């Protein structure tokens, strides 16, 4: 029993709900599928990108002059500068604010890039930043120099190199090597001067007015902002800063720059795409992808497009970048799903040279694709590279870049749909299951209640079970319950009528015996024979008594059916009965009444109540110890009369207590003179039920013995 209580009892509904959790496997499988789909999508994207690269490469093959225009030098790895366009003209004022949106293009030079340093140079004292861009025929340059001691040109001196100055070394379109120097006697508007080609102590030859700009001092040094007409430029260009710290000696302390400016072949190569090439690439570009054209030295000779869908500068950050985030649900999805990064570091946005594995592979003649994570790990970038041929030779490569944002978006979209569908499906199926379980358990509970009520506590069949028409197992169960109950009823009825049937059937043979004996008796018999007939008669008497007892219950049932109840008072009846018992019995019969006589009205039959009391007292007497009193006690409680018959004697065994009032149940151990069939208390129960009363037997608390309690409703 205890263990039973400890166990968790789950109802059918709860069980089905638990089982329905199996449905959660659907979203799990779905998410696995979507993750698998990612691989497929990546492959798909790789293939598509490669195809595009192939197409672009095929188009570029017809423009192979583009590749040939670059100096081929396989021995020295030159710095290469791909000059990117600016969005608008730069105001040449020496201030860096125009350049802020191009900060990605800053090239920094420090001690590692020193081309010359005197022993007087203090490490870290000279730094240079360079930003380059082109706009409508001009190359714009901003050079920021970190220098504590600015030494300006001596107005008296012819030399431009006895002070802090910028040297521009370049190739002219005609292939000539020229150098210009920019120096000033004070911050402000400056012009370049062409200087002589001698390596030692070059002198300015002529001012070059086409190269002009502004020299401006800053907190840490100075800025030189200037422009060069593109028409002056060939394929090589480099800028160097010479630092002079001592205004007296005016010896250069250090030279910093990207390349040595003494020889043409040492200079950086630059690439300024022609408008024709630009237009061509522009036509090939697609949103959110970037096309690179690379020559054999890995140098960028053309690029177009941006891998960030939102554009180079994220200018429209103010607007809502995501296509959703409209509803609460979308916000929830944004929280739980990995969102495509709207902003990420694109480390190649200002690259002038691409040296990735895939580029190398393409330049050696094999197409290749490569995934890489961008530096801040916010997104993955796919590069597809395809070689460009001129005849049999690879003259360059085309690389196209894309992010996986599109895949991520697709995936998220799919995931959202999956989650939505799953939630709806889960909700629906749980609802349906719940309804089903509710209906099922309702039916089962109905059946249980009917089964409970069909059989009374004392085991008698008192109701029926409505036969269900349902074809399922519950219906079967109800039908078999009903059939079972029917058979049980029949059996019970058989048991109940057994006594009367038996008594009736036995009566005829008894009459035969009795009349025979009577006849024998009337004859002349000797004493011995008479003795035997006498004994036979006594036995017959006993048998008759038994039969009468047996039919008594049945007769009572018939009486109860025809009896018309009347109102009568127990206050007269019970004492009268008690008096009767006192007259006829050896035991002391005590009678107490703790209720007003007027309240003891009940509806029923006085004869039956007297019969009931007879049976109770008879029963009490049978079990009473010698010389102990029988107590009859009447009290009232609310609307109920409580009649108790108590004796002192053996207790009622636990196991029989429930069925004490059933037909044919007897707890008697000792044999007595008069036969007992266990019908006495059954009669008590029948009469008490006729009066809408209850009868129960229990052991006395105050002393060994039993008390039979009859509760009858008071009639008002």
């Amino acid at each position, binding site marked *: 029993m205890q263990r039973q209580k400890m166990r968790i009892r789950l109802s059918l509904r709860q069980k089905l709900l638990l089982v329905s959790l199996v449905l959660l496997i659907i979203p799990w499988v779905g998410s696995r599928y979507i993750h698998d789909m990612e691989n497929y999508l990546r492959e798909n994207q790789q293939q598509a990108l490669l195809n595009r690269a192939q197409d672009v490469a095929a188009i570029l093959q017809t423009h192979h002059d583009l590749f040939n225009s670059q100096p081929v030098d396989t021995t020295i790895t030159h710095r290469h500068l791909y000059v990117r366009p600016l969005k608008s003209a730069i105001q040449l004022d020496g201030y860096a604010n125009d350049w802020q949106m191009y900060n990605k293009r800053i090239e920094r030079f420090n001690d590692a890039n020193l081309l010359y340093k005197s022993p007087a140079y203090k490490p870290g004292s000279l730094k240079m930043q360079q930003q380059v861009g082109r706009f409508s025929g001009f190359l714009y340059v901003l050079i920021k120099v970190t220098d504590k001691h600015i030494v300006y040109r001596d107005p008296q001196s012819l030399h431009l190199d006895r002070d802090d100055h910028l040297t521009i070394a370049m190739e002219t379109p005609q292939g000539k090597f020229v150098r210009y120097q920019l120096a000033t006697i004070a911050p402000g508007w400056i012009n370049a001067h062409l200087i002589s080609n001698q390596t030692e102590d070059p002198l300015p030859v002529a001012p070059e007015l086409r190269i002009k700009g502004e020299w401006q001092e800053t907190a840490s040094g100075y800025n030189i902002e200037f422009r060069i007409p593109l028409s002056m430029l060939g394929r090589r260009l480099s800028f160097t800063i010479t630092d002079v710290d001592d205004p007296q000696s005016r010896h250069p302390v250090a030279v910093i720059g990207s390349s040595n400016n003494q020889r043409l072949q040492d200079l950086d190569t630059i690439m300024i795409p022609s408008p024709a090439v630009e237009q061509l690439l522009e036509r090939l570009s697609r949103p959110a992808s970037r096309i690179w054209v690379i020559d054999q030295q890995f140098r960028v000779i053309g690029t177009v497009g941006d891998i960030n869908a939102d554009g180079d500068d994220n200018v429209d950050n103010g607007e809502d970048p995501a296509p959703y985030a409209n509803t609460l649900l979308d916000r929830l999805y944004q929280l739980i799903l990995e969102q495509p990064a709207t902003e990420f570091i694109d480390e190649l946005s200002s690259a002038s040279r691409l040296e990735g594995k895939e580029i190398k592979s393409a330049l050696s003649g094999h197409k290749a694709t490569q995934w890489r994570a961008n530096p801040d790990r916010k997104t993955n970038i796919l590069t597809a590279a395809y070689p460009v041929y001129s005849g049999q030779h690879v003259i360059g490569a085309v690389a196209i870049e894309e992010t996986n944002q599109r895949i991520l978006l697709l995936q998220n979209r799919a995931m959202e749909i999956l989650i939505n569908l799953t939630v709806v499906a889960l909700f629906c199926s749980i609802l349906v299951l719940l309804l089903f379980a509710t209906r099922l358990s309702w039916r089962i509970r109905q059946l249980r209640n009917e089964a409970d009520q069909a059989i009374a506590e004392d085991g008698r069949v008192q109701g029926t079970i409505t036969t269900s028409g349902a074809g399922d197992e519950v219906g079967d169960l109800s039908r078999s319950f009903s059939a079972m109950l029917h058979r049980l009823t029949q059996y019970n009825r058989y048991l109940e009528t057994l006594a009367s049937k038996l008594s*009736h059937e036995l*009566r*005829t043979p*008894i*009459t*035969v015996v*009795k*009349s*025979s004996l*009577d*006849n024998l008796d*009337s004859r002349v018999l000797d004493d011995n024979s008479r003795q035997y007939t006498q004994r036979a008669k006594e036995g017959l008497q006993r048998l*008759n008594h038994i*039969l*009468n*007892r047996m*039919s*008594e219950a*049945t*007769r*009572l049932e*018939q*009486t109860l059916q*025809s009896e018309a109840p009347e109102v009568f008072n127990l206050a007269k*009846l019970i004492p*009268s*009965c*008690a*008096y*009767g*018992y006192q*007259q*006829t019995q050896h035991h002391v019969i005590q009678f107490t009444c703790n209720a007003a006589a007027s309240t003891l009205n009940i509806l029923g039959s*006085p*004869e039956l109540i*007297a*019969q009931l*009391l*007879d049976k109770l007292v008879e029963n009490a007497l049978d079990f009473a110890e010698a010389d102990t009193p029988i107590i009859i006690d009447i009290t009232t409680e609310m609307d109920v009369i409580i009649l108790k018959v108590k004796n002192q004697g053996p207790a009622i065994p636990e196991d029989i207590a429930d069925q004490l009032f059933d037909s044919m149940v007897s707890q008697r151990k000792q044999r007595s003179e008069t036969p007992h069939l266990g019908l006495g208390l059954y009669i008590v129960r029948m009469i008490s039920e006729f009066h809408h009363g209850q009868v129960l037997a229990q052991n006395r608390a105050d002393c060994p013995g039993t008390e039979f309690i009859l509760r009858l409703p008071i009639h008002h």
Partner: protein
Amino acid sequence: MSKTIAIVEDEASIRENYADAFRQQGYLVECFANRTSAMEHFHSRLPDLALLDIGLEDEAEGGFELCRRLRVLSETLPIIFLTARDSDLDIISGLRLGADDYLTKDISLINLCARISAFFRRLDVLRNPPLDETCIRRGALQLDMNRFSVHWQGQAVDLTLTEFWIVHTLAKRPGHVKNRDQLMEDAHIVVDEATITSHIKRLRKKFQQIDTQFACIDTVYGMGYRWNEKTAAISL
């Protein structure tokens, strides 16, 4: 001239036992096992008294039917049911059909004989009214021991022999409580207490048909019944 008793009983042993006993008492006995043979005979010649069983061979209610037909043939013929069936319903239907008494088979032969002789005595008295009437008077009650007749307030009360003896036993000594056993003994019947109770009830009803105020038969619960003369006096 000896009386003829007809026994209609399907159980041969019982029939013969009864027949033997009656013959010993000097009666002529006619025995029948079923309704048809009995009826055939009754059409030609009526007995002086008929003793009927209710269940006859394959007819469960054959005795009732026989009783009804006999009553048609003769209004005065004493008809006694002697049967194993002892339910109230059977008793009531038997008496309603015109039977003069209803006895269960556990009655002893001696009792049965005494009862039968009483019947014949009543018949004789009806035919030849005796000069010396042995009457008991208790207020409005008048019992004629020869005729076995009862009058209440001068009106005849139609009682069976059993009922007559119960009234007689009670009224003989008014105020004395007679328990059920005593009543059974005096009425020459052996029945259970419930049957006595129903007899008493029927008795009261019969008297109440004449006098709705009738309350002379008192129940003394736990003990028995008594004739209450005071209430009888009041009712007068």
